[in-house]
């Protein structure tokens, strides 16, 4: 138990360790890169109907497997004048790849942020409870966390989603249910670490109630790490959603997801690389961006690091 605890906090620290070794410049670059990626995605998701050049689910059998615009030497072959109206080409059903990417950002962001919110709130609450009160509360929560860790999250989410049925809500619930332990472990360990320090003791002696100590004294110390974890979690949730839709177990048909596109593109990779290439690229950029923003936030929020 304590061993697992220590690993996880180590892990969290090593994940975020980059911020510790690097200075302000790197953090600024990270913040800019991450912020740009995130802003781009949010804009794409919100304004999808305005930006997207085409209906993402509209088949057009005349436009099957059309390459990206800059490689499209013969647009007339597909019966269009301007290849740039399909900037990133089309898939095997003639759907516009760019539009599908833009709409796919919606599902990705909704899943990512909902999961991160639910998982972080639940995880922080339960972790703080376990760490601060100890005793049987800690034993129960700790046991649950231990059991959770023993099962591969991807497999677990596949099983759960298969059973709950494929819908946006079930994907969100499942991933959050699996991932809350990440937050709980970090918070519990940090609360334990700080609980016995002098300044907490001082607050206790000064007559603060336990809950107010928790909120005012302990929470600010864990916050930088939590914010970083939050952004990581968004990235993880987006990845898991992609994986689920890749094995066609995510949001039911009708919505567009990056995972669908990758699965589709995997089948036609020999003929048209762009159907898989672009969603993979976007996904990588998204994950790196979220990681970067998480690291940068940690740097700016942590008074010791940004001093």
């Amino acid at each position: 138990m304590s061993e697992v605890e220590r690993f996880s906090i180590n892990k969290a620290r090593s994940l975020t360790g980059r911020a510790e070794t690097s200075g302000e410049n790197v953090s600024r670059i990270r913040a800019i890169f991450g912020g740009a990626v995130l802003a781009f995605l949010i804009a794409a998701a919100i304004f999808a109907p305005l930006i997207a050049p085409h209906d993402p689910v509209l088949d057009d059998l005349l436009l099957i497997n059309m390459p990206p615009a800059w490689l499209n030497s013969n647009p007339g072959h597909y019966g269009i004048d301007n290849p740039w109206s399909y900037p990133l080409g089309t898939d095997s059903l003639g759907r516009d790849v760019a539009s599908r990417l833009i709409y796919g950002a919606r599902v990705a962001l909704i899943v990512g942020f909902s999961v991160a919110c639910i998982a972080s709130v639940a995880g922080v609450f339960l972790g703080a409870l376990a760490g601060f009160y100890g005793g049987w509360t800690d034993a129960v929560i700790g046991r649950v966390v231990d059991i959770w860790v023993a099962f591969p999250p991807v497999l677990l989410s596949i099983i759960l989603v298969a059973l709950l049925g494929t819908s946006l809500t079930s994907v969100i619930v499942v991933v959050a249910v699996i991932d809350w332990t990440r937050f709980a472990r970090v918070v519990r360990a940090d609360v334990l670490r700080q609980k016995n320090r002098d300044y907490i003791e001082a607050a206790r002696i000064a007559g603060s109630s336990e809950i107010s100590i928790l909120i005012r004294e302990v929470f600010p110390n864990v916050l930088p790490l939590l914010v970083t974890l939050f952004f990581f979690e968004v990235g993880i949730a987006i990845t898991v959603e992609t994986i689920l839709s890749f094995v066609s177990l995510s949001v039911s048909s009708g919505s567009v997801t990056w995972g669908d596109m990758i699965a589709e593109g995997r089948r036609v990779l020999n003929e048209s690389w762009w159907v898989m290439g672009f969603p993979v690229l976007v996904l990588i950029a998204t994950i790196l961006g979220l990681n970067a923003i998480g690291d940068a936030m940690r740097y700016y929020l942590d008074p010791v690091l940004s001093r």
Partner: protein
Amino acid sequence: MLGVSVVVFAILRLVPGDPIAMMLPPGATEETRQNLERLYGMDKPLIEQYFIWLRDVLHLDFGMSTQFRLPVMEVIFNRLPVTLELVLLASIIALTLSFALSVLAVWIQRDGATLIIDGASGLTQAIPDFLWALIFIFFVTLYAPSIPISGRYDPRTAQDFITGFYLIEALITLRLGTFAELLRHAILPAFALALPLAASITRLLKSALEEAMSEDYAILARTKGKSRIAIILGEALRNALIPVIALTSVQLAFLIGGTVLIERLFSLPGIGSTAITAVVNRDLPLIQGVVLVFAALFIAINLISNGLYRLADPRLGKTDE
């Protein structure tokens, strides 16, 4: 005696979480059960069913796979070697890469090299194995179609093996041509699995090594006239290993989870891809069996790493004598 006490102690440390993990077709599968039983309209004597099932499991009887019409144990035993070989190969790759890189980084001690290794491992670590697999498949398909990206071996070449561990068997029986052929199939999925792990071990080992190199005993070793590389390998490495082993066990567990998708992507007939087909086909006994196998693997890894941890750190292990 010492060895026994170590093992017993390790088991005692691990066990509290694990009987429960073993009992419930766990966390998830508690819920899994309920849902499925409702689905199949057999939700009445839950506890009784569960104990019967538990008894069967303890006798290594997981029931029949509805999908394959074979005992679950047989399906699992046929496929487990594929997964184990994949995990083994990936671990070897990850460990070799990360040890070489971190020792190199600490040895060279130049800002530029350190920066490159840090940056590369940071990027590599951020991208999950699933994406690495896709990236490999993408480039291999487009630029090197001769490298196989699906299956364990070329079905055109006749294969003849006694065990399921084709790679190991080919190596032991010195069928090197076959081994090379098998390796060609295994190397990409193994690398996809290994890269994120290698990156995180590199980061950790490098900082642990750097810390150890600034310790007094490393400085004292310098005054004994030892060369830098001798100090890294002879003095620092063993100390740096201790925290690394702790982290790596958790990471290795993730690696086992990662096989689910990697096997699927590279069409390998292992436990992981079996799990997905079992889920898709609602093959409940097989799902339960597979989940249990994964949990058992996880526990095994934890036991091994706990043992290693004790071996590596002389301050542990003897204390409870």
